[in-house]
């Protein structure tokens, strides 16, 4: 699935300090019935975002016009639980291109990169700093620089570097995916498959 290349992203951010946000919150199971990848953004955080009668919950951050942007800043252990890639699709489809947290669940992290979202892991201290900066000024901008592997609070210049392996970085900056890579080594895979005992 093609996605937009990721290089440098400057944007205000949406804060969600809750910890252990699981993928059932990001997109509840009853919205997983589609057979195509479209429209998932409408149901992002469905049960936190809407009342039973489908009216928006005023106190939920996505319904608060004070906050907007292409970066979601989230509390520790974001994306735990189910492997549903629909969670990453919903985040992408809603318009986020980057999630910043102090800790990501493994499968969510892999799914994010595979759909073109950059998961940026920062220290708990820097995460607190970002939350404080957004609270002080909801329009404050972050710069996420993938080539330099840094995330910066533009107002103060506070910055932290983040880790990503060179291979994944290369994919994200060029819009490539793993399947392109693997299809290019089919002969090697075929030879290996011959050696398997089952």
């Amino acid at each position, binding site marked *: 699935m093609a996605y937009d290349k990721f290089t440098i992203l400057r944007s205000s951010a949406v804060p969600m300090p809750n910890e252990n946000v699981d993928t059932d919150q990001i997109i509840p199971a009853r919205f997983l019935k589609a057979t195509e990848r479209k429209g998932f953004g409408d149901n992002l955080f469905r049960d936190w975002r809407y009342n039973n009668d489908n009216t928006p919950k005023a106190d939920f951050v996505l319904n608060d016009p004070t906050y907007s942007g292409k970066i979601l800043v989230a509390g520790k252990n974001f994306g735990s639980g189910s492997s549903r890639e629909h969670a990453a699709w919903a985040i992408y489809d809603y318009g986020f291109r980057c999630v910043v947290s102090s800790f990501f669940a493994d499968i969510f992290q892999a799914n994010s990169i595979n759909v073109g979202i950059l998961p940026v892991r920062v220290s708990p201290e820097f995460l607190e700093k970002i939350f404080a900066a957004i609270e002080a000024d909801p329009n404050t901008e972050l710069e996420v620089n993938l080539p330099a592997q840094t995330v910066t609070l533009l107002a103060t210049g506070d910055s932290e570097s983040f880790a990503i392996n060179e291979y994944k970085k290369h994919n994200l900056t060029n819009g490539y995916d793993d399947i392109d890579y693997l*299809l290019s080594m089919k002969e090697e895979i075929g030879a290996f498959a011959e050696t398997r005992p089952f």
Partner: protein
Amino acid sequence: MSTPKTLFDKVWDAHVIRQVKDGPDVLFIDRHFIHEVTSPVAFLGLEGRGATVLYPDRTFATADHNTPTLNQHLPVADPMSANQLAALERNAKTYGISHWGLGHIKNGIVHVVGPENGITLPGMTIVCGDSHTSTHGAFGAIAFGIGTSEVEMVLATQCIMQPKPKKMRITVNGKPGKAVLPKDVILYIISQTSASGATGYFVEYAGEVFENMTMEGRMTVCNMTIEMGARGGMIAPDQTTLDYLKGRELSPKGEQWDKLVPYWESLKTDEGATFDLDLTFDAADIEPQITYGTNPGLGTGVTHQIPMADSVKDGSASYKKSLQYMGFQENETMIGKPVDFVFLGSCTNGRIEDFRAFASIVKGRKKADNITAWLVPGSHIVEKQIQEEGILDILTQAGFELRQPGCSACLAMNDDKVPAGKYAVSTSNRNFEGRQGPGARTLLASPLVAAAAAVTGVVTDPRGLMENA
């Protein structure tokens, strides 16, 4: 003398085709399970890039997540669910993949039918677009859940690209107490490590508690390994494993079996091999467990009180929000809490031993009037065992009915939804907000604790209801 290796290293290293510089390993996948919810978009992607399924005989399809558990002989009423099931059938047919759809004699939950038909074997790499793929680690396989992009990847190339995770060993020695089931062992471990305590790790379970466990118990333990954040868990294959596998329909036979046995017996952690983290617990500390919060790490002994927020390691605000959702207060006792629903089933506890345990408590008793019970076998084979062993009669006499196989109320994609605000004692694996239906409140527990709640109508210590009590 070569470097000592862990069980995980041995299986992982045997599957690495290439190590990408500054990147992940290219890992060959022996078995791939697919189901109706996370595969349709993968097939669309495959078609979109003009690729095909490289090894259709290494992939197995079953319908489970989104299937009704009543009247499976009738057309599926929900058009979107029916569409997903049709897509799975169509894709399986197009690419020549074995498909056990709704109504098929072997249909059931993917992590139940894989092992019971002998598809899962020691030393394999196994993936599925479902996080509870970790279940298959019970056989000494490396098994983990993947996203839909990765499903497409495995269909197209039979490989996946993953960085090698860190290694953790969890050892539990001692003898579990009365009414302590494998579910209690794993709920206890998760309560000690937290819902994110094993993120970035692959777990090996060791010690006499796991050595003495049946294969079904080991599956329950490995199944919930994902709930502490680990990608998967595994247990070294032993005689128990081989006894389970021998003679299963798709297990290797004859000469092929004989050739594999020495290899399988070599799949154990070498003396002197090291882990990034080693945790040890004592079985004597484990009593029947129950969760009180909205992640599987928030659990305790069924006779205990709900911990005070200030005694919980970090996340006090999230902890209080969690209790608020559940309608619970700090320091309350779990025993006697009202229950509305009981769910026995899922890839965690939907096997025959789980139904035997449940039946052992409800035998000669009656379902409490305030309880709605959903008893859902993990597969048609389990359903048949329930009938043949006389368990169905016990359940029926106690006022319960048996439904048809599927994931059911574990994730509530079908009609089996717990209403908002209601409490469910559930043998499934997740107690997240809304997991069993919007606003539903889930208490995770073993089949014995679920049975005790089903006959008393409240949270109850099963030990008081057991023979020799």
